[in-house]
């Protein structure tokens, strides 16, 4: 293994493990996350709005909402941070690697938590007024689709690939790591905000939708930056990998069969 591959592994495996643990927690307890504690009477129509809102808040205290949102972020977004964490570690003094990575993650997380506050407020509002309706989710899906294929989305994705220079010493190094995280968070949130909102507004099946969205986000990050334009951005990258790998394995098996049969 080359030094560079070894260093990549040092980042990749812990981050993937972290993401996997978050996914397990989400899958194990889908009802316990993000504003999903609700009471039958709330959407039975018998409880007045003035009573429903405090009850909704009581069942979904802000700390629990924030924790649920954070868990979702870790599960879905940790894998796409691997190249950037690797960049920070590579460009930082060894003794500062953990600190700089933490500052980057703090900056990135701060942006997403701010976005989360708005997203959770929207979710609570939907739970309050249209808890069992698919209409809000459908509306966001439409919005997310337009955003997904737009030139702005490409611009955001391009910026998400950036790995800029970082100061090495003192407070300048801290500031750069934090700034890098904030900047990356802004472009990442600008790229994915609508996609992230969609599963939250689904009355049911939102963990399945989250998995689909996570795959989409991971897949689109595998594409290289390109000039902004209206274009289809879907699971093309992951699909192409799957097809290419299947073809390679099939070819290898065909060759092996040919060799073993002496042809």
């Amino acid at each position, binding site marked *: 293994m080359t030094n560079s591959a070894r260093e990549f592994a040092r980042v990749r495996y812990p981050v993937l493990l972290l993401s996997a643990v978050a996914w397990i927690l989400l899958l194990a307890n889908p009802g316990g996350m993000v504003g999903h504690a609700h009471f039958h009477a709330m959407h039975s129509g018998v409880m007045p709005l003035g009573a429903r809102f405090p009850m909704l808040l009581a069942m979904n205290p802000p700390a629990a909402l924030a924790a649920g949102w954070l868990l979702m972020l870790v599960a879905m977004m940790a894998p796409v941070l691997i190249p950037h964490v690797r960049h920070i570690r590579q460009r930082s003094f060894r003794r500062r690697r953990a600190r700089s990575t933490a500052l980057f993650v703090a900056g990135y997380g701060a942006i997403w938590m701010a976005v989360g506050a708005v997203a959770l407020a929207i979710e609570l509002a939907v739970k309050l007024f249209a808890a069992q309706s698919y209409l809000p989710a459908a509306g966001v899906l439409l919005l997310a689709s337009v955003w997904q294929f737009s030139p702005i989305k490409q611009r955001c994705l391009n910026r998400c*690939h950036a790995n800029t220079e*970082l100061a090495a010493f003192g407070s300048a190094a801290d500031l750069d790591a934090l700034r890098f995280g904030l900047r990356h968070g802004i472009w990442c949130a600008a790229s994915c905000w609508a996609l992230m909102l969609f599963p939250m507004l689904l009355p049911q099946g939102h963990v399945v939708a989250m998995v689909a969205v996570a795959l989409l986000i991971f897949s689109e990050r595998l594409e290289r*930056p390109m000039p902004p334009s209206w274009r289809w951005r879907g699971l093309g990258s992951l699909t192409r990998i799957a097809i290419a790998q299947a073809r390679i394995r099939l070819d290898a098996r065909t060759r092996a069969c040919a060799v073993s049969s002496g042809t």
Partner: protein
Amino acid sequence: MATYTRTNAWNNAGTFANPDLLWYAKGVGAMQKRALDDLSSWWFFGAMHGEYVKESGFPGWGSLPQPPSTPTTPQPSTSVWNKYWDQCQHQSWYFLPWHRGYLLALEAQIRAAVVSLGGPANWALPYWDYFGPGTQYQIPPAFTAATLPDGSHNPLYVKARYGPQNNGNIYIPIPPVNQNCMSNDLFTGTDHNTPPPGFGGPKTGFSHSGSTSGNLENNPHNLVHVYVGGTAPGGATYGLMSDPGIAALDPIFYLHHCNIDRMWATWNNSGKTNPTDAKWLNGPAAQGQREFVMPIPGNNAWVYTPEQMDSLSKVDYTYDSLPALAPAGNVLVQRLTLLGAPAAAARVKEGASVTPDQNEELLGANVGALPIKGTGAVTTVKLAADVRRKVSASLAGASETAPPDRVFLHLENVRGTHDALALNVYINLPANSNPSDHPELLAGTVGLFGLRRASRKDGEHGGDGLSFVLEVSKIIDTLHLQNALDTDSLQVTIVPHQAVPEQAEVTVGRVGIYRLGQ
């Protein structure tokens, strides 16, 4: 015996008395008569390497000096464009195999044209061996003649070719252009004889514009590009060869790449091996990225992988000269000897196993971005005392089980708009001294081929620019032996081969120094 043999362009004095060059000129002329959207046109092949067809102003294809008269219409359909254009692989371990396939496809098109004009059926591209004896460091004269022997226009002549002195005199300065990469052991990766990222380039996916060039790609490949291209009088524009988006419009491009391809073949001939990693063998298409695809005569699409390109015999051609490499010295033996550990050096020479290096870490860095203007720039690279002490201790106690640290200078996030520059990088160059008097302080020379493309925010590299790695272990060894390594900082001086034009923007994001060791 291979069907096709590529021979030296300098045969018959590099003039049109060399039939390979005369037929090449006629073939290029035939391809240049075809339309931009014709898969077998000169322009289509140029765009497959890289293009600025839709850009206004230089280096947009519509604003390039003539000849040649480069078209910008009719453009192919989006699907054809996306399938074929902007494919060239740079700063990647795919650099060599992609260009080998590209040469084969161009050669097939030229050969078809040559045959249709009554030429030989076994015509092959010649190569320009700028390391050859005598005057071979100069461009073969057939490329600078205005006309062919029959008095017609010479398709090999282009106006935008300015040379290392920006005066139209086209030659390759040797040094700094060198063949040091030929002593590398590893295609990808690093060991004591192979500075990172390796002879053939770093492990990447599809990489039309990447970050760090392989050692062969950096020197001689990139340097030859920027020296041949050069800067136009006035400094506002540069020669075709200097930028991947216009380079393959200049017919000398393919002769340069034949020589790079020949160097790869020579390296393999000496027993150095190509990657066996499935990701290299199967190419980026196996990772869900673009495939390598070329049009071949008959407008057929030929898809290929690095595995199909990894030896000349697989593709049925050879070179008239694949010289055996002189045995390379063992760098670790040299360093151990220099550092006063002759017994360890002797053991390494006898084949004692050497403990591999495990860790790379930052040793020092400058503060702030460094603009490169005029005749150059100087910056102070501050060293971290604890890491520097590790390096000193490693050099003082070096042996085969505790090899001396290796030290690298990185130019990180180099951005700008002027590709036609070679930067000479010195460590601790005395003030007011003539850089050329201090070759012992030269960390290396880098060419900025691809700078503009790598700096575009919506380009394939997200605007991160280019990065360069230069091994400076021997300079650090000398400082250590002179008791001059116990210092807080090193001075890094960057001297462009020609003054940077005023309107050019070139900035080094950060200068970093790293150690690799236990």
